[in-house]
């Protein structure tokens, strides 16, 4: 079993962990977004969707623990990579200029990643670890998005998520070795499309709710 540690322990191995966990999150976000679209259906639709989820019982718990594990791997590996990368160039350049490879989203990856972690904690505290005995999830959500600060915060967070996905999506294909001149343009396009879908899809919800509520 040592080989598993060796395999994932190398620089490429760590990147593979980032890519694989990242791929899972993209899957999760897709599901999450589809689920959240029920918000457009109003209170009943959304609450029904929530009910449905909870009815899954142990499955949902399993998924939650799974996601937590993936997140732990993604965050821990990401931090390790970030620190190693910092250490790989102890003396910085006096002048830094891009040759045209970097994008804002690729340059900010570790920082958007960290920001997403903070957002996630807030998001879970706000909507997940909350007493739902005398209320429904829809009420919590609509109450939260009655506040302009909250709305702005969520929109900014979704911009950050979009940036993270903008680079993360194609990057994970590259890391997994899927770079072919025929398909890479589609992957690059996919990267943009996904980041926009997630950014707008999630980002517009608070606005919609505050107006519809």
């Amino acid at each position, binding site marked *: 079993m040592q080989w598993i540690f*060796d395999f994932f322990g190398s620089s490429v191995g760590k990147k593979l962990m980032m890519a694989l966990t990242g791929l899972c999150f993209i899957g999760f976000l897709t599901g999450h977004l589809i689920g959240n679209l029920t918000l457009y259906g109003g209170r009943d639709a959304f609450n029904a969707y929530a009910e449905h989820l909870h009815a899954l019982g142990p499955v949902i718990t399993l998924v939650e623990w799974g996601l937590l594990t993936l997140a732990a791997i993604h965050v821990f590996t990401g931090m390790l990579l970030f620190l190693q990368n910092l250490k790989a160039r102890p003396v910085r350049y006096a002048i830094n200029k891009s040759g045209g490879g970097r994008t804002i989203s690729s340059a900010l990856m570790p920082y958007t990643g960290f920001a997403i972690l903070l957002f996630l904690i807030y998001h879970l505290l706000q909507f997940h670890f909350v007493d739902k005995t005398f209320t429904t999830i829809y009420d919590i959500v609509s109450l939260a998005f009655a506040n302009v600060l909250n709305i702005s915060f969520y929109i900014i967070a979704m911009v950050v998520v979009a940036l993270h996905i903008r680079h993360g999506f194609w990057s994970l294909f590259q890391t997994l070795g899927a770079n072919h001149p025929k398909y890479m343009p589609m992957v690059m396009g996919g990267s943009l499309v996904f980041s926009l879908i997630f950014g707008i899809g999630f980002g517009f919800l608070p606005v919609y709710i505050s107006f519809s509520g």
Partner: protein
Amino acid sequence: MTKTINLTLKIWRQSGPGSKGRLETYIANTISTDMSFLEMLDVVNEQLTLDGKEPIAFDYDCREGICGQCGCVVNGRPHGPENGTTLCQLHMRHFSDGDTIFVEPFRARAFKIVKDLVIDRSPLDKIIQAGGYISASTGGCQDANAILIPQDTAEKAMDAAACIGCGACVAACPNASAMLFVSAKVSHLVLLPQGRPEAAQRVVSMLKTMDELCFGNCSNERECEAECPKEISIINIARMNREYIKAGIASTVQ
């Protein structure tokens, strides 16, 4: 027609690996725009010598863009502002009169500074020693035409093999990673049928050595391919990742 320009240079001076370096200012006047960047530095050095000062140490050899020995970071970019160009092939016509130019050595933890702009790139040799070869001892090889290699494959191998080992990819990488260098060699050899038998061992050993030498990790920022004087593509990095996955999952290589 030849025209001349005047420049202010801010050049990194450092007397040895352990000593503290600093940027120093030099004035370079009436520099012909037909000069290469290194010839411009020659002119500065000639003047420094005549003034009884120590000339700037910088590496160079072939001065035709193929040996890979030259290279500095010019205004924040390895080998300067022109794409697909080594420093010796960068001509002063790409600068304007009155420009201030910052010249720094390639910086990475793995590359120690020898003096001024001269660095120690021996870690790249160590990576090649870990497996950047085909074990074909001299003699006893079959006829060169015995194995057909599709033209397209040979061309791809050549694209990767064009690497000159200058280290600009490391210098350009925000993480000082050597992934483009390693992947170019892995790709070159793995694309050819002759290199396939050792493919798994090669990719694992070379990557392990790269990690041990304290290069950073790839985060797909693509600065390496943007700055590579031979314009080697990150498609090679993807190919290496693929080989690594194959070697890790499907082979018994340690």
